[in-house]
């Protein structure tokens, strides 16, 4: 890529991460451009969630480096890390709402923790974000009374309430009906442009993702197997990318978790 350095918000170089002896990432390079929506795609279990956790420094890489906004993650003190995290929003795969607080208090939580705003302003901000995800009427429900898709939308409102510079969405589209899906896609796009956010979307949803992503990385087996704008990827001649984008079951992308030979395994029991 030929983008000037300061256009890159997240820069991973030689990133290596292992679980046991298995490489989840083996020496990969990755750039997330500022102000753009970058999608991370790949088969289930390739480490997309892990990548987001590495970017949030909830996990530490075994090799390589990650820089966010020019700051090397490995060198940050706890205080600096927390300051950085205040500027990052993350939508967890299952929402991860705080179960002892209701919807309203969940969204208000970051405000109450990090600001000294008067109650009237907090109320204003919370209702605005809940309105954006269509759940203003659900403010008094507790998380156990929400469906999975609703919980994820509340979590989205919560992640946005501090107006971060960067948003990470882990599977924002799963569990949404066609209408809320459309709203979500437009919401993510319009917020990204209006607030000049930088967004990272992890998703399996090829259609929706290619419709809003500016740049796509396809991961598999610890490596980046394809990258480019959605158009570039459609015209690629890489067998990996073709198989993934067209959802074919035969091809180089493994559906199976690493395992010994099937026949030998069956006979060996």
């Amino acid at each position, binding site marked *: 890529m030929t983008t000037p350095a300061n256009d890159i918000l997240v820069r991973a170089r030689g990133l290596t991460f292992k679980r046991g002896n298995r490489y989840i990432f083996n020496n990969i390079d990755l750039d997330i451009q500022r102000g753009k929506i970058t999608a991370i795609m790949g088969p289930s279990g390739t480490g997309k969630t892990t990548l987001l*956790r590495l970017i*949030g420094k*909830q996990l530490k890489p075994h090799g390589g480096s990650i820089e966010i906004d020019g700051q090397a993650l490995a060198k940050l003190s706890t205080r600096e890390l*927390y*300051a950085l*995290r*205040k500027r*990052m929003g*993350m939508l*967890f795969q*299952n929402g*991860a*709402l*705080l*179960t002892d607080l209701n919807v309203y208090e969940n969204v208000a*939580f*970051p405000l109450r*923790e*990090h600001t000294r705003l008067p109650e009237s302003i907090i109320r204003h901000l919370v209702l605005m974000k809940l309105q954006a995800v269509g759940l203003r009427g659900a403010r008094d429900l507790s998380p156990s009374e929400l469906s999975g898709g609703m919980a994820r939308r509340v*979590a989205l409102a*919560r992640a946005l309430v*501090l107006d971060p510079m960067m948003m990470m969405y882990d599977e924002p589209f799963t569990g949404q009906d066609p209408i809320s899906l459309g709203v979500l896609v437009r919401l993510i796009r319009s917020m990204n442009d209006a607030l000049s956010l930088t967004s990272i979307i992890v998703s399996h949803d090829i259609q929706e993702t290619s419709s809003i992503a500016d740049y796509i990385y396809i991961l598999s087996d610890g490596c980046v197997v394809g990258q480019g704008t959605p158009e570039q990827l459609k015209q690629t001649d890489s067998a990996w990318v073709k198989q993934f984008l067209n959802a074919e079951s035969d091809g180089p992308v493994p559906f199976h978790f690493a395992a010994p030979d099937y026949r030998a395994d069956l006979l060996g029991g």
Partner: protein
Amino acid sequence: MILDGLQSVGRTTLDVFSKFGRAHLFLLHTLAGVPSLFVRWRLVVSEVYSLGVLSLTIILVSGLFVGMVLGLQGYNTLVNFNATEMLGVVVSLSLLRELGPVLTALLFAGRAGSALTAEIGLMKATEQLSAMEMMAVNPYKRVIAPRFIGGLIAMPLLAGIFSAIGILGGHLVVVELLQVDAGAYWSQMQDTVELFDDIGNGMIKAAVFGVVVTWIAVFEGYDCIPTSEGVSRATTRTVVNASLATLGIDFILTALMFSDV
């Protein structure tokens, strides 16, 4: 065979030591989170409520019955020596020095400790703790420290209530039922029980148990394997370990406090 045995002994020993290390690091992090509670005192209040106030029923009922049983058993023995006026002393000293703090700690481990472990374990399993970290909120400050301090405050209060209601239970049986003179029951107690030696030491015990039980409970929750099975095991471990720790520490404290050697 022998090698296997040795290996598993070695592994278990290592596991135990590394768990001990983690538990102490955990305590350090928790204590570091305590100063921030001056701003979040409301969290502590709500923990004292859910750990303390909600444990009141079991503490009151148990305390009452233990006091009544003490009165009954003491009467059966002392009546042979015509010493039933000493019953007030027997009941109150047993409760204040031993049974109050120890039984309260055991009940507290079962009622509040298990709940603490399960709650924190589930927060971990459902990624609530991770989510807090990503929102730049330190879970040690927001979740662990308030529960730890809440337990420390609740436990001695509960032990005090246990002993008090136990002495009343003793009164019910000894004075009302067995017709021992009420003046003897109370005045002997007043003459014998020392503020610092008996009540004070009992409260020190209760405070120590409070630290140990709450520490074990929050640590087991935080350290659990984040699955339903992991949480359920951690809950069991909390009750077992906290009870054993209470009884072991009680022996040591009793030896230090009440032996005249």
